[in-house]
C-alpha cells in the first residue's frame, strides 16, 4: 500500500465501468423531457393485442399486425410490444387530462439484418390538454432536436402516416454530407385513440412523438453499425465512459 504522503507514487486509477451507450442516450433524453414537464410511465414488454394495436387504432388488417412483423407469444395470446405507445394508453386510462407522459424502453419487431434488429429502444411522449396544436408540437420538436444536435441544426417536417396520429409527420435533420436523415415520428393524437381511452376528443387534443434511441445514438456517437451496441465488447463499451 503506498504511503499517502508518498508524493512520487503514481496516481491510483480505479478503472470505472460505464453505462451502456443506449441507456446513456435514453436516460439523458428522458431527463431532458422531464425538464419540459413530462412524467415517466412504465409498462410491460409483453403486451395484449388490445393495448399494442386496437387501442391505438391499428386495425386488424394493418400489415404491422402480421406474423412477419410482430412477435406473437404463447399461442398468439400476447405480443412483444412493437412500440412503447401501449404504455401511454395505460397511462391515459389511469389519469385524466391534462397529462404529459414519456415512456422509454425495449421494443420488438421481426427484423434482423445489418440495419434492423429484432430488439431496439424507443422513447415516446404524449401531451393531452385543451387546444393542443400541431404548432405546439413543432415547438417541442425544435427544442428536442436542438438540444440533441445543436442550435444550428437544420430540420424539416414531412407528412407521414401512423394510425394513432393524424396529421402525422416525420422529422429529418440535414447531415454534414448534405443528406436528410429521419430521426423521429410525431403527430396530433388521433381522436379515435383519445376516445378509446375515455378522453373527450371534442374537449381535449394532444400530440405524440417517438424516437428510436439506436438511430439517435448512432448519429450522436458516430457508430456506423447498429449491431455494435449489442456485442457487449468491452473495447466498444469502454469508449462511452
Amino acid at each position, binding site marked *: 500500500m*503506498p*504511503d499517502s504522503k508518498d*508524493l*512520487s*507514487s*503514481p*496516481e491510483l486509477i*480505479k*478503472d*470505472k*465501468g*460505464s*453505462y451502456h*451507450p*443506449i*441507456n446513456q*442516450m435514453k436516460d*439523458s433524453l428522458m*431527463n*431532458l423531457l422531464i425538464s419540459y*414537464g413530462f*412524467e*415517466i410511465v412504465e409498462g410491460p*414488454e409483453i403486451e395484449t393485442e388490445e393495448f399494442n394495436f386496437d387501442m391505438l387504432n391499428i386495425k386488424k*388488417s394493418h*400489415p404491422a399486425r*402480421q*406474423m412477419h412483423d410482430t412477435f406473437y*407469444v404463447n399461442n*398468439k*395470446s400476447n405480443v*412483444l410490444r412493437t412500440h412503447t405507445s401501449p404504455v401511454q394508453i395505460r397511462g391515459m386510462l389511469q*389519469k385524466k387530462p391534462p397529462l404529459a407522459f414519456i415512456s422509454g424502453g*425495449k421494443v420488438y419487431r421481426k427484423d434482423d439484418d445489418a440495419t434492423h434488429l*429484432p*430488439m431496439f429502444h424507443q422513447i415516446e411522449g404524449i401531451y393531452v390538454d385543451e387546444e393542443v*396544436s*400541431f*404548432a405546439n408540437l413543432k*415547438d*417541442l420538436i425544435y427544442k428536442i432536436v436542438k438540444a440533441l444536435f445543436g442550435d444550428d441544426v437544420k430540420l*424539416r417536417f*414531412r*407528412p*407521414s*402516416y401512423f394510425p394513432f396520429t*393524424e*396529421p402525422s409527420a416525420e422529422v429529418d435533420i440535414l447531415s454534414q454530407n448534405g443528406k436528410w436523415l429521419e430521426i423521429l415520428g410525431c403527430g*396530433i393524437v388521433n381522436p379515435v385513440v383519445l376516445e378509446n381511452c375515455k378522453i373527450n376528443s371534442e374537449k381535449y*387534443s394532444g400530440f405524440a412523438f417517438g424516437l428510436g434511441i439506436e438511430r439517435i445514438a448512432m448519429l*450522436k*456517437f458516430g*457508430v456506423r453499425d447498429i449491431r455494435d451496441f*449489442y456485442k*457487449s*465488447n*468491452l473495447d*466498444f463499451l469502454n*469508449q*462511452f465512459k
Partner: protein
Amino acid sequence: MKISYKHIANCLIPRPDIGELSEKLFQLGHEHEIFEEIFDIEITPNRGDCLSLDGLLRDLKLFYEIEKKHDIFQKEILPFKFEFENKAKECCSNISFLKIEIDEVPKRYEDFLDDYFSILNVKKINFFTDVSNFLSYETGQPTHCYDSSKLNEPIMLDFLDKETEFETLLDKKIKISEGDLVFFDKDKNVINLAGVVGGKNTECNKNTKSVIVECAHFNPEIIIGKSLKYDISSDAAYKFERNTDPYSHDFVLRRFIKIVESHTQIKKVELLSKSYAKNIYKFIPTEITKINKILGTKINENECLTYLNKLGFEFSEGKIKVPSHRNDISTTNDIAEEIARAIGYDNIKSEPLNISVTNNFKVNFEEKKIKKILIDHGFYEVINNPFVIENFSESVTVDNPLDSNRKYLRTGLKHSLINNLLFNERRQKDSVKLFEISDVYTNTDHGSFGKRTIGVIASGRIDKNFLNFSKKITKDYLEDVLTQLRLEKFSVEEISRDTLNSKSKNKIVFCEFEIDSSLVLDSFFDDLRLDDITGKEYKPISEYPSSFRDLSFSIKDYSQCKLLEKFILNYEHNLLKEAFVFDYYKNEKLKEIKIGFRLIFQSSKGTITDNEVDIVMDEIISSALAIDDTVSIPGLS
C-alpha cells in the same frame, strides 16, 4: 414504387426541374430517392391512391396545372354476356370483365408504351399483359388478363374449401390454403388467386388475340399477407392491400381499350360490370375553425376549400365530399392533414408550449443507484436480446421466432452474461466485469409475468492499477461489492468452466436478483444529461489481436517518477492502445523506486508483429531514459 421523372414532368405546367419536383413530393409526404431520373418513392401505406402516375399527379395538382395525355375509348361498349357468380361480395364489391378481340398482335409498341418498358427497365411479357402492367403504372388499378380461349365459363369467385395446388403464371407451384379467395372455372379448377396472381392454365401468350380483362376492387383485408405467405412478388397484391378506387373501373377499362386500339384493329369489345356496394362516398363537415385549432394556424375558409378542391374534394351544404380514391380520409383531422400538406408542414409556424401538469406517477431511482455503485467498481452495463434456445417449463414461447435458436424468451440473465464474458475473454481481456438489468418474463398460472432483474458477472483481475493488478476476482470480492447494495439476501455463485469451452483458470462469479420495491438504497445516482454525452465520439475498434509489453524502471531520484509516469501514460502512437502502471514499489532502504508499466499494442490493419511493437518500444525506451540519468531499466545493457 419506381416512377419516371419524365412521365410526371411531362404532365405538369409549368414543367419543374427534378430538384423542384423532389421538394414538392417531400412536402406531400412522398419520401423518395432518385436514381438516374427515376424516383423510387416510398408511398405511406394509407396512400394506396398514389401508387401510380395518375395518383401522384392528383396530389401535385396542388402546385401545378395538369395536362394528362391519357385518352380513353369514348364509344359505347356492348354488354358482355359472361357467366360470372360472385360468392364473396363482402370481399369484392365491384368487378368488371372486358372482352377484347383483335385482328393482329402488334409487332411493335407505340413510343409511350415502349418508353415505360425501357425507362423503367420492365420486362415485356405479351401484348395484353404488357398493356395491363402499363395501365397499373399509369392508373394504379391492377387488371388481370385471361386468354378467353382457355377460360371455361361459368367463372365463380369464392373461398377455397380445401388446400389446393395451384400453378401460377410465374411458373411457380404453390399450395393455397382453405379459406383463400380464388376464381374457379366451370370444372372447379382454380384459375386465379384473387388479387395476387393468375394461373398458368388461363394465361395469355404472345399469340393471344382474344382476352378477358378482369378489373376488380378487393377488400384489402382479404389480400394482406398473401404475397408474403406464398412468396410471390405481386404488384397487384401490393396495390390491393393498400386499397384501390372502386369507382375507377370504367375509366381504366376504357383506357385499356384505347391503348389496344392505338396498336391494332379491334374486332370486338364487350363489357360486364357488377357493383354490389351501395354508394360509398364519404361526407365530412366543413369545420375550418377546428382545422385551425388542430394545426395552430389561421387559414381562412376560402384558402382551405381551394386546396381541397385542387385535391378533388367537392362541397355542398356545409359538407366536404371525399373523392372515391381517398379511402384514407374520414375525419376532420384527415382534412387538417390535407391542408397542412398543401401549405407545407415546414410553413406552419411553431407556437410556444408550456407544459404544466401535476405529476403523480412514482419514479423508482433505486435501479439508477445500483448502476452507479457497480460502475464505480469497474462494471460495464450490457444489453442482450431475450431470445434463446433454452426451454424451461415456465418459458414464454415465441410463436413465430426468427429461427429455431431463438424460440423462447430467457428466464434469467445468466446465460447471456456468461456468453458476454467468454466473448471478451476470447478477445484477450484479463478482467471482465459486467452487469445487465432487464425485465425477465416467465409463464405463471395467471399469464406471463415480468420481473425486473439484475445479473452481475465477473472474472479475472480485480483492477489493472498497481494495487489490484495481481488480485483475482473471487466470490468474496463480488459479495463485498454487492454488500453495498444492502440487500436482505443475495447469493453469489461460482460458475464452473467445465462446460464452457474455456481454458482460463480465472474463477467466474455471478449473482442475479430481482429489483423490487423493497430495495431502498441510501446512495447517489447519476442523473445523465445530454451535455454529459456530448463529445463522446466512437472510434472503430480493431478485430485483430493485441500484444502487450511490460516495462520496468528503476528510479533513484524520486522526483523523476512523476515525470516518467506522465511521459509513458501520455505517449501517443497509433499502435499503442493503452498504457497503465501495474507495479510500484518504493524501497526507502535502497533509495530506489521500481515502477512497472504495461503497454498494449494493436493495429487496425492486421495482426500486429513483434517488429512493429519493437520499433515503438525503442522510441519509448530511449525517450524515457533521456528523462534523467537516475532512470534506468534493470537488465538493459
